[in-house]
């Protein structure tokens, strides 16, 4: 995936107003299948995968024993005893290693990393569904948000997942790697604009979605990242990190992730310091001049004392101060 095909802003705009195509084949596809696959995933992840209905998906985290985040994932239930776990490319080996270790501890043997066998193409934007529909055999309107179905895409059998990372409606299309170029071209011919990593980053930022390595890492726990509700503590079975997460859930998380907005055109970018007067109280994790909104938006970890919506903080932008205000995430929400 290139940073851009033509223009970051044009590609960003294509997704917000029309339809954009992202080649996210670098992401990891891990299949978990066989007897006890649901209870195995319940043990591995912070969500209750066994409660996901067949054909549905759920956002999840995989944590370590300390409650630190190894990765964020989407778990799709393909069948009663078959799950697809999509992990970040950069964490593929860590996630697979953790699942294999946990499989060993749990006495389970159905974890298969099939990342190399599959290409994943995201089609996102208000016209994405209509355009994708022209080359698939299933009625996409019957697939609700966060669901998955098998389908034939331009003659190729694959999966259609109504998920994404842009804040727009759309699908992620999973096909065999050998058909990747064919399907990519078919989607372009369907009138969908190819988009690069730069647009993907500004789109997910506006939608308030975290990026592993920026908002999430091993030293961050779900309560700091605003994902307390993702963690299902109220269940009988044990899961990796449960003890630590139970303790963390009873404490006040600090620092915590917030959204920040400012005026003007100057962006507060990742790693810039957040200040209260002259005291450093946090750090920007992602930030840009929002292409859709026209003002600077950022996510940051800040001291919880200044994390309330409406709090004013300063950001040191290469020696200049920008006053920013804490807002509720996301920055951008599509009109239904």
């Amino acid at each position, binding site marked *: 995936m290139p940073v851009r095909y033509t223009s*970051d802003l044009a590609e960003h705009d294509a997704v917000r107003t029309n339809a954009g195509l992202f080649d996210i084949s670098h992401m990891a596809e891990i299949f978990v299948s066989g007897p006890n696959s649901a209870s195995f995933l319940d043990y591995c992840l912070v969500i209750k995968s066994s409660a996901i209905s067949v054909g549905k998906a759920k956002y999840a985290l995989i944590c370590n024993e300390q409650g630190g985040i190894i990765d964020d994932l989407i778990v799709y239930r393909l069948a009663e005893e078959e799950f697809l776990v999509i992990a970040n490319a950069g964490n593929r080996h860590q996630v697979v290693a953790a699942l294999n270790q946990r499989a060993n501890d749990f006495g389970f043997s159905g974890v298969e990393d099939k990342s190399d066998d599959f290409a994943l193409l995201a089609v996102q934007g208000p016209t994405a569904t209509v355009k994708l529909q022209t080359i698939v055999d299933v009625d996409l309107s019957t697939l609700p948000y966060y669901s998955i179905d098998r389908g034939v895409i331009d003659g190729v059998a694959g999966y259609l997942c109504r998920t994404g990372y842009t804040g727009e409606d759309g699908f992620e299309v999973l096909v065999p790697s050998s058909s990747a170029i064919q399907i990519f071209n078919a989607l372009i011919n369907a009138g969908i604009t190819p988009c690069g990593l730069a647009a993907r980053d500004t789109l997910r930022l506006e939608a308030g979605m975290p990026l592993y390595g920026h908002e999430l890492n091993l030293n961050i726990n779900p309560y700091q990242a605003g994902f307390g509700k993702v963690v299902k503590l109220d269940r009988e079975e044990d899961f990796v990190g449960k003890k630590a997460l139970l303790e963390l859930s009873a404490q006040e998380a600090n620092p915590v992730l917030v959204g920040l907005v400012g005026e003007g055109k100057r962006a507060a970018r990742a790693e810039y310091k957040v200040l209260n007067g002259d005291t450093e109280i946090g750090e920007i994790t992602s930030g840009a*001049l929002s292409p859709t909104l026209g003002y600077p938006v950022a996510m940051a970890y800040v001291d919880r004392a200044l994390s309330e919506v409406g709090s004013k903080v300063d950001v040191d932008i290469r020696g200049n101060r920008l006053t920013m205000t804490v807002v509720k995430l996301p920055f951008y929400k599509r009109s239904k």
Partner: protein
Amino acid sequence: MSNPTNLKYTKEHEWVSVEGDVATIGITAYAAEKLGDVVFVDLPKVGSATTYMKICGEIESTKSVGELYAPLDGEVVEINSGVIDAPETVNSDPFGAGWLIKVRFTDLPTLMTAQEYDALTGEA
């Protein structure tokens, strides 16, 4: 895009057009393309001094921040308000309407020729 032969260049990707004792300065097409869509330009004030190869401004894209290095010692006599209002001009016409500042100078340092700059950026 080829680099105009009537301009001088720096290794930090500024171009310089000299007319009398005033140099018009911008960033090259190569630099603009590497930055991506320019969304914000911060230029020095008219009347401020520039120092050879010291940062005097910033060019921001959605993805990153580029620095404007002064190609010569002098005094800023004009800034391009057009690019402040429409930063995308830096991408669409880097060697023309996308110019950034004009600097009055007394001595002109040795700058790169278009040929030398082509070699630096790997353009034939």
